[in-house]
């Protein structure tokens, strides 16, 4: 069965420092991976996705993610964190059968960026 895990409930970083939000997955077949962000009292916003090709994917708001097949990971990164990046982040993987568009979401990681 497909699954995705976000091992950290919360990540704390200082403004200006690099940030990493971790995601690992377990799938049969090729993984299609997604990151979403949720600001307080809002719906989810799409950040980036990996379907195929370059392992480093660039997305919105300066975020990027690195696909690592051997470690089955898709960590979200940003070189310099902003206080406004504080939000809830979700990793997701496509569910099987793979043509339905359904996603399986991780439990979410709260990112807190302190001034």
């Amino acid at each position, binding site marked *: 069965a497909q699954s995705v895990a976000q091992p950290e*409930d919360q990540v704390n970083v200082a403004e200006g420092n690099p940030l990493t939000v971790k995601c690992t997955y377990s799938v049969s077949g090729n993984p*299609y991976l*997604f990151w*979403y962000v949720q600001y307080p*009292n*809002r*719906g*989810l*916003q*799409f950040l980036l*996705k990996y*379907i195929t090709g370059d392992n480093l994917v660039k997305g919105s708001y300066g975020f990027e993610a690195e696909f690592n097949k051997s470690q089955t990971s898709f960590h979200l990164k940003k070189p310099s964190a902003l206080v406004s990046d504080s939000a809830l982040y*979700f990793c997701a993987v*496509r569910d099987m059968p*793979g*043509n*339905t*568009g*359904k*996603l399986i*979401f*991780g*439990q*979410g990681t709260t990112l807190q960026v302190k001034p």
Partner: protein
Amino acid sequence: DVKVTQSSRYLVKRTGEKVFLECVQDMDHENMFWYRQDPGLGLRLIYFSYDVKMKEKGDIPEGYSVSREKKERFSLILESASTNQTSMYLCASSSAGAYYEQYFGPGTRLTVT
């Protein structure tokens, strides 16, 4: 920009009431989804629709039903609301196929008393 709207941001209902949550998307998407979001549990899929009048159960369909009479509209129905259905409900839509991201509405926070 893709826009997904939900009929209410906040809703308070009594136990036993029938509750309708409406979702409308304006991008001609084939797929529409209803999730509930609870702290520590992430998003859980309630129902999924891939075409008008077509639906598929998700992970937690019990106590819910859905209706999709028009392509742009997907309704979630709580036949008899219970307190354990107090939650944030999120609607999403996407193009058909596995490559496409989902676009989410702002959510409806439902409280059942």
